[in-house]
């Protein structure tokens, strides 16, 4: 509670230490939006295309995380 009382926006960091992984989602959305803003010929195409690529980035990150977790299980846990 004390860290909330001393909080100064833009100067003090947000107390999000336990939720840091969720902060990657808005970053994925921002990268997707700007990327599709550059790539799309027409502006009206941007929302759908950006949403699609955001979903793909998140699914890919989940797949990579699952792959690394599986590799860890095989290399460290199961062979120990």
């Amino acid at each position: 509670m004390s860290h909330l009382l001393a909080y100064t926006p833009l100067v003090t960091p947000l107390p999000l230490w336990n939720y840091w992984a969720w902060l990657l989602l808005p970053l994925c959305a921002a990268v997707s939006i700007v990327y599709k803003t550059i790539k799309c010929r027409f502006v009206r195409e941007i929302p759908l295309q950006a949403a699609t690529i955001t979903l793909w980035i998140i699914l890919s990150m989940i797949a990579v995380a699952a792959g690394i977790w599986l590799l860890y299980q095989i290399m460290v846990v199961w062979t120990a």
Partner: protein
Amino acid sequence: MSRRPVSNIPAPLVALSGWLLPGLGYLLIGERKRGLIAGITIIATFLAGILIGGVRVIDVPGFDNNGQMKTVVMPDGDRAATLRVAPLQEVMNKPWYIAQLLMGPTNLIATWGSLAAATAGHKQSTARIFDIGTLYTAVAGMLNLLALIDAAHRTTHPGEIEDDDAEMIEKRNQQNEGALADAAAVTAGVNGSREPSTGGPA
């Protein structure tokens, strides 16, 4: 849909505008919606990084953790700023600043804020929160680099755009051409009045 006419604004000026304010390059070449989407997203990402990790995620090369300029003792006994003596090494110690610098004056304001916060005794955030904040601000800078390159490229490469944007570009180009013609007429008038008279009395 209309074909976007080639803009009469030079590509380097468009790129510089994009660096000064994210999205401004697109606005200059008449792509208002694209400029607003890119600009708002990039600035929001940069501000989100500062909001998450605190303004001290802008880690300025050449300055220590207390916001004081780092110095070294020279062979002649004088002190010199590290940034002046070994600028490349200083920047390579804090490479994220290069990406953050691509945000232009927005980052320079944040740099001032970061040094002021450091001088006032605000510590840097730690661990992942610092990393995430740095990542947001650096990615915003790199996205701005992409956007300004794209805007400069579109200046000289016509393509299909929204009708209202095309009308605005045409109108602006006509205004620019009109202003140039007026300036040329004024210049010609001035030159004409300065021509020496040949048939006057001696």
